[in-house]
């Protein structure tokens, strides 16, 4: 979303500027040439004729209005969602701000979880608020594996100076087949 906003922002700015320039050109041209039949760059007399015949209840008006509302909703969503999803770490001094990405946290957690012998594979998703660990155990692993994995993740989160401790949820699935 941040990249989309970086691309959209200058384009929208230029579009606003272009609309402003066209407005000034047309108003000044219409002022200086009162007898002219057509606009200088924009065929606004044709538009005026069309809009004279249209009523608010006509279909194109409603369709355009809904289109405008949808575009506005999308634009507002892009603006609202273009925030950074940084994970903040505690720093030794106020002169330092330490951040990392959810991807990095997920990789660190995943590596720690896979160190356990009973874990065959694990997938981890992390956000600033929540870490979800799905571990697949070898056949025959006991039910205590889930709490072992949870303890490991808790230990890791204590080691990492995370500013805000995310909630951890662990699920263990047993893998079929021989080890």
């Amino acid at each position, binding site marked *: 979303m941040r990249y989309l906003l970086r691309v959209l922002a200058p384009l929208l700015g230029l579009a606003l500027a272009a609309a402003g320039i066209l407005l000034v050109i047309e108003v000044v041209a219409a002022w200086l040439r009162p007898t002219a039949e057509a606009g200088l760059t924009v065929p606004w007399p044709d538009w005026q004729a069309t809009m004279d015949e249209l009523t608010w209840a006509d279909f194109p008006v409603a369709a355009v209005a809904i289109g405008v509302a949808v575009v506005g909703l999308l634009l507002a969503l892009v603006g609202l969602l273009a925030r950074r999803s940084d994970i903040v770490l505690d720093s030794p001094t106020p002169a330092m701000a*330490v951040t*990392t990405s959810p991807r990095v946290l997920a990789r660190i957690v995943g590596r720690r979880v896979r160190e356990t012998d009973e874990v065959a594979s694990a997938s981890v998703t992390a956000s600033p608020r929540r870490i979800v660990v799905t571990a697949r155990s070898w056949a025959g692993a006991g039910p205590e594996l889930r709490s072992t994995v949870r303890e490991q993740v808790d230990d890791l989160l204590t080691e990492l100076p995370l500013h805000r401790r995310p909630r951890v949820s662990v699920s263990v699935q047993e893998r079929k087949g021989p080890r």
Partner: protein
Amino acid sequence: MSEPAANTVELSKQTSTPAAPEPEPPAGVLRRRSRSAVARSAARDRGIAVLIGLLLLVTGTLVALLSFGVFGSMRAGRPVLDPVVVEALGTQSTVSRIVAIAVGILLTLLGLTWAARSLRPERRPDLVLAAGGATEIVVSSAAAADAVATEAGRIPGVGRVRARLVGPERAPALRLTLWITDDADVQDVLRRVDGQVLASARASLGLGALPAAVRIELDTAASASRVA
């Protein structure tokens, strides 16, 4: 043949008054400066996008409701270009033209300013070491950042480093991205960045404070793509 007196260069050191580093700003200021160095701010772009989006949303919704006859079927049956409005504009033609031109100029200026600000590259401040005298020593932004990056690369557990200076020239800050190895101790790395790298950078550049935004990444040398 006369001596080229104009070419004489006087090199002298002022040993009596060594350049004292600036006093350190309060912790709150440092915290704010280091946080704002984390990434280029998109707050302005986001704000304007949300504002324009909401305006379009409200306008579109109101017109759609009007069109569906929510505000009465009489009103919905009026032409879009209402003759009453056209007549009112026609009787006040000079005023409405001036207003339209003013709106156009305003839109142009706002649009161009917005586009220019969001396209402008982020500032990389050069550091002025000895200002005020006849001579000025300027350390370029890239040189200072390279020096810091080299120093940070020596920390055990740090694989790759990218450093750059950001912020205004009077209050520069450092943006440091560290790619740490798998076995690195994050707390130890951070302590060393503060104690070794930033301290020596402040001392050698004569800065009272050099707020830093540190970004931790994992070195991809031994990466496993098993994490969803």
